């Protein structure tokens, strides 16, 4: 708007920024200094052929892209994210439907219960899952007392156990955007569906679900990004048996001290996650039209 105004005046050459722009300076500097800067640095580090970073080249990239082991790690990481997203979508949508059918008081109680885990450290929540999933844990105690299995089920250090605990840990990230979208659904629309003779199931899948898609997409983005990068949960529940990209980065950077290779894996993780996120939001746009 200031551009057209100054052109109209014809006095100044440069378009005058509107008055609030200095407010973005602190955040902008922080962003450039501590996000863009390190990112560029990371890219620069990744193009070195040796651990001491004396020779520049693409050897590390060749090593990463040429080894099927690392491709498998990328695939496992993506699949971990996809499975966690799938589980949180199902759990989140069911919770959302219950949320919709509740009155305002129960709703605020539900919101409180959803936000509550966020107040606890991820480490604490992860260790809680060890107690639940371990050989002498709650689940195995129940399974063995009921005589469903003679030996304890192996849940720790398996992908299943990790997906279950990640789904619980990341569920608030799904629920918060999802519930705000679902709460905006006009209750008359649900009444209309009911009055037109639709069963609860039809209303749920033909009306509530399609109208919840924007919330599910937003939640999926957060859960995917967060669960693929969940280094603590991946290492604690996976216990070193399950190898995902964050673990590889940690090993290369802090155990092997191969910084260029750690930088390559980091950038690969970033690109992979960004790629999947773009795909999810493209799907969301497709569903909306």
């Amino acid at each position, binding site marked *: 708007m200031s551009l057209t105004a100054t052109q109209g005046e014809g006095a100044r050459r440069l378009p005058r920024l509107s008055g609030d722009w200095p407010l973005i300076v602190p955040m902008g500097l922080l962003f450039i200094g501590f996000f863009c800067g390190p990112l560029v640095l990371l890219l620069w580090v990744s193009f070195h052929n040796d651990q001491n970073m004396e020779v520049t080249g693409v050897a590390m990239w060749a090593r990463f892209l040429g080894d099927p082991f690392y491709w498998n790690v990328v695939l496992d990481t993506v699949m971990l994210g996809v499975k966690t997203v799938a589980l949180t979508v199902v759990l989140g949508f069911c919770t959302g439907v219950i949320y919709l059918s509740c009155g305002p008081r129960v709703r605020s109680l539900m919101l409180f219960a959803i936000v509550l885990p966020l107040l606890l450290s991820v480490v604490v929540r992860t260790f809680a899952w060890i107690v639940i999933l371990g050989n002498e844990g709650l689940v195995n105690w129940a399974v063995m007392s009921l005589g469903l299995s003679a030996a304890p089920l192996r849940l720790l250090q398996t992908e299943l156990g990790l997906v279950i605990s990640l789904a619980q840990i990341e569920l608030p990230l799904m629920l918060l955007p999802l519930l705000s979208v679902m709460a905006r659904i006009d209750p*008359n*629309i649900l*009444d*209309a569906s009911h*009055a*037109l*003779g639709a069963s609860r199931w039809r209303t749920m899948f033909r009306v509530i679900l*399609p*109208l919840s898609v924007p919330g599910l997409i937003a939640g999926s983005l957060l859960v995917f990004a967060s669960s693929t990068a969940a280094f603590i949960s991946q290492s604690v529940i996976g216990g070193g048996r399950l190898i995902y990209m964050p673990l590889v980065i940690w090993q290369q950077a802090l155990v092997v001290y191969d910084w260029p290779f750690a930088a390559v894996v980091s950038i690969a993780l970033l690109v992979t996650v960004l790629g999947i996120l773009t795909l999810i939001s493209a799907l969301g746009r497709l569903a909306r039209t």
Partner: protein
Amino acid sequence: MNAHSGLAAQTSGPPDARPTPAVPTEPARRGATLDVERVSHSYGGFRALDDVSLSVKAGEVVALLGPSGCGKTTLLRVIAGFLNHTEGNVRVDGAPVDRVPAGRRGIGIVFQNYALFPHMSVSQNVGYGLAARGRSRRQIKDSVARFLEVVQMSAFARRRPRELSGGQQQRVALARALAIEPGILLLDEPFAALDKNLRLDMQIELKRLQRDLGLTAILVTHDQEEAMSVADRVAVMNKGRIEQLGTPVEVYDRPETLFVNSFIGSSNLLAGTVAATGPTGTTVDLDAGGRLTVAGAGGPAGSRVLVSVRPEQLHIAHAPGEGLFPVTCRLELPVGGNSVLDLQTRDGADVKLVRLRAGAPPLGNGQHYCGLTPDARPAIFPAPAG
């Protein structure tokens, strides 16, 4: 259930020797009767409906009219089956439907904001009820085409609701409600979101459709003109009760309670004291001066009453006389072919008067006299305590 089946049955009877004219004695009606019997409903401690009874004939349009919070929407939701009322019965075509879910009552609903499914096309919206009833693809397609034709929206079948204007959305909402071929149509403030010109068009169109299809309809509205123009009978509601149920003319000309009188149309309330009661009515001494005889009972001699007179039932005289009370004119506003006079009586009450503008010279500032026109039908109510 088909609208044409009644007609088809009449024309495809066994061939008679004499050709009989195929004129049905009555239009094919498929409207259901609706009986609301002593229904009450409370939200917590608040009594939203208090012992409401209402019988609606097949093919009749009844408007539930009242201010917000009077219980009209609660009553609509009880009839629709969205609310389980605390006491009483609702019957459709004589059968109790209290335990019948909303979708199986044979009732179509048009919501105030239309409540169209935003993610579906116009066709999908209209076909939704039929799909929910498990009709075949072919049946759904035919019905959708037919009802879009009825509301003149065939050209918009593939559009999404957000690509339509308010009036068009309303037509779609109507087609969606009609597509399940209900016996009763419920309309919740259907015209509230439309601008004034479009509102009248849609009212006429709705009335024509309802008549052609022989539908029973319940219209919830706070707009009295809308209730008057569309409905056969009007139920004026206040505080969870039906204050008066009657034709628009009855409700306007012979309001039974002070609330109905004040809510419907505009009226002047003149305070007075009963002087005598007789076979012709009640004689009242107005505080403004003058003595009127009004049909109806206002109480024994000496009791305080309010006499209600419509602005168009008053006239101006320039000399004192029988039944006239003195007024001064504060303002004269030309409104179309009429002029509205803002008068003040000697006890300070405001009186509005409407008269034809043609031929009447503007009123001066001096003393004038006001009285009832010969055809006036004033109403009398006991003055509320306090």
